[in-house]
């Protein structure tokens, strides 16, 4: 029996009966008619379409707007499990901000020999323009989405620290709205911590980082690349929910030493810009000169304290996959404590011995591009064909510094609803963290992504992943 349970299932553990956090839900579920639930599933899809919770797929005109599939079996985390996770995340995010400040100022961690200088100096994510810049409140990463995976009852790993512009929070909020709409009775049986405060918290958190030149109530805006961006829905959603303007580069220009937006009554300065545009495109005068998505001169205004950019430019140096392997050291260096959350063991292919090991064990490892995201450009050894491995080997040998490798983790599963009833699928978790000068706030839960294909470990929405509502139970 136990051989079959290679993976830890969050609902049933390694046995047949529901684990503690799922008991009440499972009791409810067992009394439900699965046909009714199947209908509910279709209702949910119609609801998402009506609300317009879609993402755009690049290069596919036909299916330009797609829905991310939603599975209506929630992922449930107990209050005890959560409090430990939250402590670990907070510690890690605190360390990341201290690391960023240090890296763009005195670079003590390099002087102490804990992180090699090449990791910074030869890294594209490091922005020389940020050296010596002090962001308001010393906050670099106003919004973080820490990707976690689980492998056992008490085993969590951090997979990635998304410290640039993590997306997905709108799905966390809409998934909960949808569940409340479809199963109101369920929420009176099971007490779940709410998530709906997120937009207010985001507003408060960003406002607390207003720049020196802000007078009065801070004026917020969300900068989107535009209506064709894959996450446009989320940009509009967040601007709407926190009562900020949704702007594009061509709505903005520098006026009297401030970044200002063109309103019906003339140009009005913006205090805090929550940008969903990458560093490279932010300012054609300071970065990519061909960018039409940004604002010419915004970096100069930023350096002079005329605007807060969230997240700060240059935070990518902290969530870079090569830096990732140093995170346990980074946490210890800045907090003086051992990291609460584990790192996945990581081989840096830039190192000779590590590369040799990785090349010998490609069929067992996951190999990722250092700057990649969205699950593209990676090799999942155990799931790849001989041919794919051979092809990848060539890429790796030609540019080893571009890659890191990790063991294939036995990712936990949570059941999804299929035609044949409940069936386990692999999941990850992205909690959302807000950083302001006086506090770090983590919304209980986050976005659970689920690989809908049986056996698949790839949860990315661009590659057939879906989402689930994530419940953190009340104490």
């Amino acid at each position, binding site marked *: 029996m136990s051989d079959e349970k290679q993976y830890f299932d969050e609902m049933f553990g390694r046995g047949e009966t529901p684990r503690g956090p799922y008991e009440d839900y499972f009791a409810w579920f067992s009394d439900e008619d699965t046909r009714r639930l199947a209908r509910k599933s279709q209702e949910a899809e119609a609801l998402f379409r009506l609300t*317009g919770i879609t993402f755009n797929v690049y290069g596919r005109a036909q299916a330009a707007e797609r829905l991310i599939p939603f599975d209506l079996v929630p992922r449930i985390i107990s209050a005890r499990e959560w409090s430990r996770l939250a402590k670990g995340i907070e510690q890690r995010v605190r360390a990341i901000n201290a690391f960023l400040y240090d890296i763009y100022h005195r670079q003590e961690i390099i002087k102490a020999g804990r992180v090699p200088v090449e990791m910074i100096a030869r890294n594209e994510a490091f922005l020389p323009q940020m050296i010596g810049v002090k962001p308001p409140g010393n906050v670099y990463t106003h919004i973080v989405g820490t990707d976690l995976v689980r492998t056992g009852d008490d085993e969590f790993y951090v997979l990635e620290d998304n410290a640039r512009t993590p997306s997905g929070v709108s799905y966390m909020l809409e998934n909960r709205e949808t569940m409340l709409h479809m199963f109101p009775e369920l929420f009176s049986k099971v007490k779940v911590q709410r998530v709906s405060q997120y937009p207010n918290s985001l507003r408060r958190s960003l406002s607390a980082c207003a720049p020196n030149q802000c007078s009065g109530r801070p004026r917020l805006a969300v900068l989107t690349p535009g209506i064709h961006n894959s996450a446009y829905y989320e940009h509009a959603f967040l601007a709407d929910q926190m009562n900020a303007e949704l702007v594009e580069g061509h*709505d903005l220009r520098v006026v009297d030493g401030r970044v200002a937006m*063109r*309103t*019906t009554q003339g140009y009005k300065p913006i205090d805090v810009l929550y940008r969903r545009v990458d560093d490279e495109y932010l300012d054609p005068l300071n970065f990519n000169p061909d960018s039409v998505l940004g604002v010419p001169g915004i970096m100069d205004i930023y350096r002079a304290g005329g605007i807060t950019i969230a997240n700060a430019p240059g935070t990518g140096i902290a969530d870079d996959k090569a830096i990732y392997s140093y995170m346990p050291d980074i946490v210890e260096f800045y907090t003086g404590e051992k990291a609460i959350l584990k790192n996945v063991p990581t081989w840096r292919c830039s190192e000779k011995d590590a590369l040799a090991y990785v090349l010998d064990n490609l069929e067992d490892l996951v190999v990722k591009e250092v700057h990649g995201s969205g699950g593209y450009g990676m090799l999942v050894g155990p799931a790849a064909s001989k041919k794919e491995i051979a092809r990848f080997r060539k890429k790796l040998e030609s540019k080893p510094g571009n890659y890191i490798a990790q063991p294939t983790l036995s990712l936990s599963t949570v059941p999804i609803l299929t035609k044949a009833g409940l069936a386990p699928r692999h999941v990850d978790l992205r909690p959302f963290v807000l950083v302001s000068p006086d506090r770090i706030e983590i919304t209980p839960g986050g976005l659970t992504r689920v690989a809908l294909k049986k056996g698949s470990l790839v949860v990315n929405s661009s590659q057939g992943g879906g989402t689930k509502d994530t419940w953190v139970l009340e104490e």
Partner: protein
Amino acid sequence: MLGKTAGGLFWMFRYLERSENTARMIDAGLRISLTRSSAADSEWASIIDATGLREAYLQRHEQIEGPAVIDFLLRDKTNPGSVIAAVENARNNARLVRTALTREVWEAVNECYMVLKDKLSRPIRDRELPIVLQTIRQRTAFVRGALHGTMLRNDIYDFARIGTFFERADNMARILDVKYYILLPSVSQVGSMSDNVQWETILRATSSVRAYQTVTEGDTDPRSIAEFLMLDRRSPRSLAFCYGKILDNLGYLETQYGQHMPSFEMAEKVAGRFNNYSVEAIFDFGLHEFIAEFLNDSRALGYQIEQDYRFIE
């Protein structure tokens, strides 16, 4: 509010109004072709003229005939004036200004788009046409209803309303521009007064048949039709009514912003004409000239609103 958002709202509601008006014109053409087939083709020609799309149409079709006109106006995506293109434009503008809309308004316009995209994805068969036209009217009305019922009365609402009435007046004037000759007194001497197919089309295309009959208690004559469509303040589609509303909403904007704008004065001048002239005076001046002048002023006003409220850089 961002200038871009104001422009997006203005155009979103212009496009919605346009799709509804196009549906009404097709309805009028259909009615004629069912009841008086001999007059049908010239009716379709004047409908194409009223939409200002004759040239675009003739690039794609050799002859002006019912089925081709209907397809062109309803579902030809290469025709920027088709209902499907207008609804898609309305929805794209709604996405652009999503943060200015309530959830209800957004969902209404999104559903309008989804339903019509589905209905207009295949050629429409004759027997489906009345239902399709009804769906267009109904779905656009839902958006208007959501706007009335859920939106704050502020600048956002004002731009939405200005777009609506601007487009409605423009559409009305275009129909009058194409059909003015049938309303001239000299023509009314010819033929049977109560059975003039042309009069019926113009009333139907502007959705005014019942309203007109109520007001005139059943009598039909060209002078009173012209008066009703242009000057009657009880009709929500008359030029006078639309310009009264445009003026109101531009006025609210000035109060809210505390700024006086050239567009208000221009609209005041246009609206003033409907207050000061009787229908007799308009006929004396020349109905066609009056409408042509109105269309010019309307174009200039649209441009001025765009400038005053910084729709574009």
